[in-house]
């Protein structure tokens, strides 16, 4: 009896530990539709990478803007689905303090990325990422991985895997503060992760 109780306590502790770990890693390991409450947002790690023209792009240069930061690769089919959405967002919201930044994980760098960018007519800044930057963002291994970053440079939402265009649009509009500022149903301080979208091996 005592042994059974002890075993159950250990099970509860293990579950609590896993829950705490998931909570601490929440903006990376799960798909959270909707933006986090401001108090829950963590700073997006800064980076400096060169774009196709050789110009250095720093995330911190975008402070004051809402940024959609997308890790992708030319060989990633689901990324190819999302990229035209991001082209639309860049076109529609670029004049409203919004920017898309694409970080490619292609191992051969610009050799693959430049022709792809031209073919798909990407209208936002694209950089080839580095291992250091991947590690800062949790060791990106699954693509697409996308972070939506608020005007203060904090991660407001993240998506691992193919999300929906409408989800992204709602999150962007929520962070841009439009339409004139009704509280978005996508803002929640008590959200539950969608465990069906947890990596790996869905």
């Amino acid at each position, binding site marked *: 009896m005592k042994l059974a109780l002890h075993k159950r306590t250990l099970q509860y502790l293990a579950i609590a530990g896993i829950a705490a770990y998931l909570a*601490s*890693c929440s*903006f*990376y*390991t799960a798909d959270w539709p909707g933006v986090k409450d401001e108090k829950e947002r*963590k700073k997006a*790690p800064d980076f400096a990478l060169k774009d196709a023209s050789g110009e250095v792009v720093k995330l911190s240069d975008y402070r004051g803007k809402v940024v959609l930061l997308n890790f992708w*690769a*030319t*060989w*990633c*089919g*689901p*990324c*190819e*689905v999302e990229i035209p959405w991001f082209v639309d967002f860049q076109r529609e919201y670029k004049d409203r303090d919004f920017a898309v930044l694409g970080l490619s*994980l292609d*191992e051969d760098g610009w050799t*693959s990325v430049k022709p*792809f960018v031209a073919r798909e007519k990407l209208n936002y800044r694209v950089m080839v990422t580095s291992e250091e930057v991947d*590690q*800062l*963002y*949790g*060791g*990106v*291994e*699954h*693509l*697409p991985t996308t972070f939506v970053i608020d005007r203060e440079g904090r*991660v407001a939402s993240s998506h*691992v*895997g*193919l999300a929906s265009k409408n989800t992204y649009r709602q999150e962007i509009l929520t962070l841009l503060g439009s339409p004139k500022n009704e509280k978005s149903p996508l803002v929640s301080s008590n959200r539950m992760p969608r465990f069906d*979208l947890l*990596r*790996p*091996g*869905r």
Partner: protein
Amino acid sequence: MICFAQAVNVLHFDPPPPLKAKAGSTVEAKIPLSLQEGYHVNSNKPSDEYLIPLQLTWTKGVLEPAGVVYPKPHLEKYQFSPDKPLSVFSGSFELVAKFTVPAGAPAGPAAMSGKLRYQACNNTMCLTPKNMDVALQVDIVK
């Protein structure tokens, strides 16, 4: 820094029993592979130039590599490619590696090592390309 993600390997290789190889002959080794459910890898001849093919290569060893036979791929449609079927392998499948055994190969145990390069996806996400070590035990007989 954001929480560290665990490395994910969805393709598994079960080393086969030692390959009996007669000096001066040609031999074939079966390379059994199995993918985690829900995942696929591009075949050795993917349907798009941007996709990364499955490729087995050997480092120099006592046997001389004489080609790899890949299984017939499936043509599958996915959520991210609903119109264009992709040439893929999924589930359990087998590669056949061919070798020439030099006539002067010394009798006894030996090993061949190689790399299997692959890139896996499921219906909604892809994993970064991986290089998996493949080791083959060989027993050379005269």
